[in-house]
């Protein structure tokens, strides 16, 4: 039931992205999201697609994993595409008119760009962050990047600690959930039949024991942490120190350039490109 969740999973490896400083990766992700959202004209979208392909290539993440990560979102993606396809009004002649359905060429375009955008966002964030960065590296990077916020009393360390503990307990709680499901099934609980309300109700006997045990675990963990001299982020040192290598900066600079390029490419329309090509020949 919970085996197919790829979100937040880390696949150890030694690719260029695996070795990149996680802080740089977070900045890259932000740039990447800007890039994907900004790309609007067809050439720009095509360019952003190329960039996504490049990321996939340097991440060394297997193709099957990528497919798996997109799978749960197929419904959302299809829904967005269909809505955009039918409800975008265009100025030109409709491509198709049948009863109350009218499809304009603009609609097709928005649907396609929307689809590409969403797909790139899901794949990109997966590749850049979760698949190639260990959870601890990630929280460490967030803590370091947000350090300046400490000056205005934002509990940066506590936030990072909470996040790393949450990530640490995901496998433990998944295991526990499966145990509870088995236990309730053994007592004839039925999770698979009935309408949606009935099925949601069937989840209650899973969720309540899970919450109770999670709270108990939290209490014990707090004791164990105190016993190991934890007293917040004050005066704490780290086993691992993050090092930014020159290649990381090269990577960062090239992506920044790429993003800026997208801004300019955006201004060129596809029809202009065709006209330009026609001019040459």
């Amino acid at each position, binding site marked *: 039931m919970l085996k197919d969740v790829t979100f937040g999973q880390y696949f150890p490896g030694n690719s260029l992205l695996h070795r990149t400083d996680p802080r740089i990766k977070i900045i890259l992700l932000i740039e990447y999201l800007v890039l994907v959202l900004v790309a609007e004209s067809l050439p720009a979208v095509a360019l952003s697609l190329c960039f996504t392909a490049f990321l996939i290539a340097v991440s060394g993440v297997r193709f099957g994993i990528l497919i798996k990560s997109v799978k749960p979102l197929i419904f959302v993606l299809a829904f967005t595409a269909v809505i955009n396809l039918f409800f975008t009004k265009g100025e030109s002649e409709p491509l198709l008119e049948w009863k109350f359905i009218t499809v304009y060429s603009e609609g097709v375009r928005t649907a396609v760009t929307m689809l590409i955008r969403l797909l790139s966002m899901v794949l990109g964030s997966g590749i850049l962050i979760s698949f190639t960065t*260990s*959870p*601890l590296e990630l929280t460490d990077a967030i803590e370091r990047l947000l350090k300046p916020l400490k000056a205005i009393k934002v509990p940066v360390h506590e936030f990072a600690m909470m996040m*790393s*503990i949450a*990530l*640490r307990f995901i*496998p*433990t709680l998944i*295991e526990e959930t499966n145990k509870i499901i088995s236990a309730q099934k053994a007592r004839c609980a039925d999770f698979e039949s009935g309408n949606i309300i009935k099925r949601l109700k069937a989840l209650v006997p899973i969720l309540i024991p899970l919450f109770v045990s999670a709270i108990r*675990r939290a209490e*014990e*963990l707090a*004791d*164990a*942490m*105190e*016993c*190991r*001299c*934890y*007293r917040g982020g004050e*005066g*704490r*040192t*780290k*086993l*691992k*120190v993050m090092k930014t290598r020159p290649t990381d900066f090269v990577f960062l600079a090239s992506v920044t350039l790429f993003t800026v390029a997208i801004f300019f490419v955006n201004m060129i329309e596809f029809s202009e490109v065709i006209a330009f090509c026609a001019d040459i020949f």
Partner: protein
Amino acid sequence: MLSGLNVKIEKGSYTAILGHNGCGKSTLAKLLCGILLPTEGNVSVAGMDTANEENAFEIRKRCGMVFQNPDNQLVASVVEEDIAFAPENLGLARDEIRRRVDEALATVDMSDYARHATHKLSGGQKQRIAIAGVLAMGPDCIIFDEATAMLDPTGRKEIVAAMKRLNKEMGMTVVTITHYMNEAVEADRIIVMNQGEIIADGTPEEIFSQVEVLHSVSLDVPQVTELMFLLEQDGFPLPRGILHAMDAADELEKFIGEQKNERA
């Protein structure tokens, strides 16, 4: 919960606290390392009163604790990062943290697992990592609060072996809270608790000679001790407080030899 308690645990000793569920043994453990504070009376660790807030950090540094559930005391997803947690909290330099992590891993015989994910280890291995996590803090004393209760027999053996090694080879003070008699036998001193009070205190031989007392608080004695006790009850003149199978065999051999001599 607890009343009339007056215990002194010597440095470098190996003490087992016995008692069945709800008798206050876990409460005692939490009092010892200052997680709980006494409402009456006082607890002092190495001469420092636990009630004094200023001592809390120093006490925790000296007195580590391993808990029952191995899953609920591992903080990080990777073994070496978890072990580094305590030295990181102490604010040590990076080289020193590295050294302590490697040393602690070697002590619990888990050096090969430094880069492994904690949730994929077995119960016994997780508990060894928990011990290493405490060792890396550099304590003088480790309290095991039913640390073997959730493990399979193999895991239990690993942990008991680790406890013995810590005490005998490294001279660390070990306090183990348990309801497994076979673990208590390994200790130098046993404290038996019932309903928040100490009802017996002594060496394993002394404690397990008082089979009736243990039975009265529904505690078992080791199988061999039980056997010798039953034989004695049936009128055989055998000594009490036998803890190991080989000792029992020797006693029986001696007894049978005497019987033969008498007949001859």
